[in-house]
């Protein structure tokens, strides 16, 4: 009996939480995930970690893009960012990202090669 009352009280409480913070919806957890086994906990943690690593990666890329393209495209900062500076910056960014990809693939190729030599 006590439990039944407790669970009845749960419903308006949840409603209230939703009304206070409409932007944050508590996730609806599928029944099969309510009792998480260690494997799915592990998976969730790993997903979180890898998305954080991606974020760090993106942040670093933005920093580098800005630094390098500012050096290249805005040699003497004027009163505003001119249209030629802007178009230079956009092509510079695209070029930097292309260069990043090329460097990454060359680096990985080289690592593979060295591992092959060692084995």
């Amino acid at each position, binding site marked *: 009996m006590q439990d039944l009352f407790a669970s009845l009280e749960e419903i308006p409480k949840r409603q209230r939480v939703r009304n206070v913070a409409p932007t944050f919806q508590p996730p609806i957890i599928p029944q099969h995930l309510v009792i998480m086994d260690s494997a799915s906990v592990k998976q969730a943690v*790993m997903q979180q970690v890898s998305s954080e690593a991606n974020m760090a990666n993106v942040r670093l890329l933005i920093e580098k893009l800005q630094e390098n393209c500012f050096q290249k495209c805005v040699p003497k900062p004027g009163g505003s960012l001119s249209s030629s500076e802007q178009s230079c910056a956009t092509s510079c960014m695209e070029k930097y990202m292309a260069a*990043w990809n090329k460097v990454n693939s060359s680096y990985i190729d080289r690592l593979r090669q060295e591992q092959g030599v060692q084995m």
Partner: protein
Amino acid sequence: MRRAQENETDSAATETHQLTQVCWTKCFTGNVSGSKLDKTEEGCLANCVNRFMDLNLLTVKHLNSMRH
């Protein structure tokens, strides 16, 4: 095993950021022309990465030889 692989890809990305920085200043000295890489730029980047790694190995070897 999987964790080791993930660390590897993570550090590969970090290493790529540093290498791109180094090779960008080496291979793109003039004004930015176009938004795509041309053949010489691609070749320059590939050489830059490989020579950087060569120097890396050489540095380690040399330091090792200094210890003896």
